[in-house]
C-alpha cells in the first residue's frame, strides 16, 4: 500500500526537471471547467485522465488545473489549453477517451486536435 513517504521520492525525481522548466518560463496550462455543470457532465474523469496521461507522457512543463463555469454549459466538459506562443484552444464535450490524443498530438506535438474543438462542434 502506498505511503506518504513515497512523495519524497517523487520530489527528488522532479528536482532534476525544475531547473529546465524555470528556464523555459512559460508552461502549458490545461484548464478543465469544473463548476456544477462541468462536474455533472463528467469533468472529473476528464481531469483525472489528463493528470494520468500527462504524467505518463513525462511532460514536466504542463499543469492540469480547473476553473469555474466557462459559460457554454451545453458543451461541457470543456477544456481549455493555453500553450505559450499559441492561441487558446477550447475543446468541448471531452471524454477520458479523447484525452490521450490531445495529450499526444497537442500537448506533446504542438498541434491542436481540430475535430474536438468548439469550432468543429458548431
Amino acid at each position, binding site marked *: 500500500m502506498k505511503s506518504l513517504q513515497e512523495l519524497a521520492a517523487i520530489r527528488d525525481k522532479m528536482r532534476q526537471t525544475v531547473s529546465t522548466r524555470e528556464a523555459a518560463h512559460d508552461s502549458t496550462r490545461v484548464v478543465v471547467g*469544473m463548476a456544477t455543470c462541468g462536474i455533472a457532465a463528467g469533468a472529473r474523469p476528464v481531469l483525472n485522465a489528463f493528470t494520468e496521461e500527462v504524467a505518463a507522457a513525462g511532460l514536466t512543463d504542463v499543469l492540469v*488545473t480547473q476553473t469555474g463555469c466557462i459559460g457554454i454549459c451545453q458543451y461541457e466538459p470543456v477544456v481549455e489549453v493555453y500553450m505559450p506562443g499559441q492561441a487558446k484552444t477550447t475543446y468541448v464535450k471531452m471524454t477520458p477517451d479523447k484525452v490521450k490524443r490531445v495529450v499526444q498530438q497537442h500537448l506533446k506535438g504542438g498541434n491542436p486536435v481540430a475535430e474536438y474543438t468548439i469550432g468543429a462542434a458548431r
Partner: protein
Amino acid sequence: MNVLDIAQNSVAAGAPLTRITLTIDHAAGWQTLTVADNGKGMSPELAARVTDPFCTSRKSRKVGLGLPFLKMAAEMTGGAMTLESAEGVGTTVTATFRLGHIDLAPLGDMAATIAGLMQCNPDKDFVYTLTVDGESFVADSRQMKQILGDEASLAEPQVALFIRQFIEENSAPLLNKGEEVL
C-alpha cells in the same frame, strides 16, 4: 454524492483549510458527511435561505443547487442536513444518511474528489478523514506540502496522480468493510 460541489463552495469562500470528514458506522446504520471550512462564512440571513435553490451568492445566474441537492440526498434516506455558519469564522455543513436505504446515493469516487481538490487548489489545504466503524484514514495536504517543500507543487500531474492512488489504496480496505457487513 455532490461532495466536490460542496467543497468548492468552501474554496469559493476563500477558506485556507477545508476539512472533509466521512464517517460510516454500520452498527448504528448511519453515514455522516461533514464539510467544515474557515472561509468567510455567511450572515444569519443567508444561512437561513441557502438551501433554497433560488438563493446563490454568484452573479452569473440565479440558481444554486449544491446545498439543496445535498439536503435532498440526505432527507431522501431519512437523514438530515444542518448548516452552521458565522461570518468571518467559517461554515460547517453536516449531512447524515441512513445506510442501506434504497435511496442512498452512492458515494462516488471520493479519492478523485479529494485529490482533485488538492491538485486544483494547491494554495489551499484540505484534510480528508474517512472513518469506518472506528478505523480511520487521514489525507492531509499540509503533511504532503511539508514533504514536497518548495520543490514540487500539489498541482504537478505526477504528484496529483500519486495522491489519488494514495487515497484510493488506503481507503479501499475501509470502504470494503462495508460490503462484508451489508
